[in-house]
């Protein structure tokens, strides 16, 4: 089966009865723990039937003046398309976690503003592998062993022992940084901007704060025609000007050696949402169907901050866990509908909870890996109630 535990979408996971093989700890928990902590259909904390919960959700959406649909990064492309159609019908806002995750990076890649590649090509060809503000050891446990550093590829037959050069950039010595020993470098940064500046200066033959380290990395890049940089959330929050980072990537490509950019990973189908919305609207997230444009002010967090929305349909995500307190307090004041197979903090405080199926485990469909490669899911079972069915019913109702 294809594991939907993270955006690696590992396609070699085998489930034989109770045995789960080839999965990482995250994938194992995702599949083996599928039956745990399940959500129930609820209206104002009172257990109801699924149909009643859907009816109540329709009522809230119909009565709302400014609703938003948010989340959708763990569901299938089919459900995402229906959610976008619902947002269009309601003329409302739609956004996903990418607006405060790696959306800017995915957008630049989709628009071909920066060169990107696939994880399969990374496995076969990449020499210098940079993880910047990412800790795949815990967030994407098979990333390094299946795609980037450890495997032997077509042009990298000696794998990490001789054919790869690992660079880890972080504000702390993460587990991944601890692996940067042989043919590797760990760069501890206080301000990510300083490292971007150092790369930009070094490309022009000048020395910045990290002059010597950057010099060594660029020298290693020159040895190959295929290098890759994985950008993580640490980069997103550590950098003040993302355009300057993209300029750095372009300059290295022009003056030093080919360097491809990939997001280091996120929810299983976040890229799927970005691509689906992009195909429909030309934008990857924070979109208003009423205003027919995407703006910073249409981000889920900004809309809550400015109290611009009165109801939220939350799909397969748990914003209450991540929203800053002041914004979370405002989120508590609006009507909340949650579609989720699992109980979450948000579902505990929601007005309506609609239980669903876990995409890839209990229902099929398609998803997009973090590098843009599409996969058809091979679920272990097909549950009758899933996100697609729920969205179809809501669409009919509104």
């Amino acid at each position, binding site marked *: 089966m294809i594991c939907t535990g993270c955006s690696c979408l590992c396609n070699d996971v085998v489930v034989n009865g109770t045995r789960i093989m080839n999965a990482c700890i995250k994938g194992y928990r995702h599949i083996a723990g599928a039956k745990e902590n399940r959500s129930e259909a609820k209206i104002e904390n009172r257990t109801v039937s699924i149909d009643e919960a859907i009816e109540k959700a329709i009522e809230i959406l119909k009565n709302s003046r400014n609703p938003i649909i948010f989340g959708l990064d763990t569901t299938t492309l089919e459900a995402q398309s229906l959610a976008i159609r619902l947002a269009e019908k309601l003329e409302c806002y739609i956004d996903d976690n990418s607006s405060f995750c790696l959306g800017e990076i995915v957008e630049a890649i989709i628009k071909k503003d920066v060169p990107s590649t696939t994880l399969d090509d990374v496995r076969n060809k990449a020499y210098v592998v940079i993880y910047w503000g990412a800790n795949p050891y815990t967030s994407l446990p098979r990333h390094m062993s299946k795609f980037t550093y450890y495997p032997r590829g077509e042009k990298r037959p000696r794998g990490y022992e001789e054919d790869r050069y690992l660079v880890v950039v972080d504000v702390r010595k993460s587990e991944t940084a601890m692996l940067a020993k042989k043919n590797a470098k760990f760069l501890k940064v206080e301000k990510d901007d300083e490292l971007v500046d150092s790369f930009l200066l070094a490309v022009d033959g000048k020395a910045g704060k990290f002059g010597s380290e950057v010099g060594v990395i660029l020298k290693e890049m020159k040895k190959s025609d295929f290098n890759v940089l994985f950008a993580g959330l640490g980069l997103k929050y550590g950098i003040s000007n993302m355009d300057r980072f993209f300029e750095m990537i372009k300059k290295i490509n022009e003056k030093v050696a080919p360097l491809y950019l990939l997001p280091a990973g996120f929810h299983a189908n976040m890229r799927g949402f970005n691509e689906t919305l992009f195909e429909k609207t030309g934008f990857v997230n924070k979109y208003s169907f009423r205003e027919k444009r995407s703006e910073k002010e249409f981000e889920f967090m900004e809309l809550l901050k400015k109290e611009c929305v009165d109801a939220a349909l939350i799909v397969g995500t748990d914003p209450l866990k991540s929203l800053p*307190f002041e914004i979370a307090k405002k989120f*508590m004041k609006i009507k909340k509908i949650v579609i989720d197979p699992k109980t979450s903090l948000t579902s505990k405080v929601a007005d309506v909870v609609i239980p669903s199926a876990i995409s890839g485990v209990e229902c099929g469909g398609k998803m997009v890996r973090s590098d843009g490669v599409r996969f058809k899911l091979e679920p272990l079972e097909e549950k009758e109630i899933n996100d697609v069915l729920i969205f179809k019913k809501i669409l009919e109702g509104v």
Partner: protein
Amino acid sequence: MLRISKFMKFEAEVVVARDVIFENDSLILVHPNLAKIYGLRDGNVLEISRGDKIINLRVKISEKAPENGCLIPNNIFASYLCDTQNFKRFKAFLELSDSKATELEEIIRRLRE
């Protein structure tokens, strides 16, 4: 035994990290260097304050925390302390506390207020 550190309040950088073990626990990972300076041990409770927000988290000494700083898993406790400008990295004041670690229900109660 009297611990001088018990009366010390100090400022440290806090980094919020995803996919850390014990993600949902009220824990703060403190780097051994910082723990040594302030005499912190595993299981101590630290009062963490930022502006008018205060929570108590249990200490776990770990090299995974930034040097001379701390790490909080990406959870509601971290979100309670952060703001939109300093979403995943901020400075906070830390002080040993005799109280219990803050529970999830307490944060939800404060959210509902």
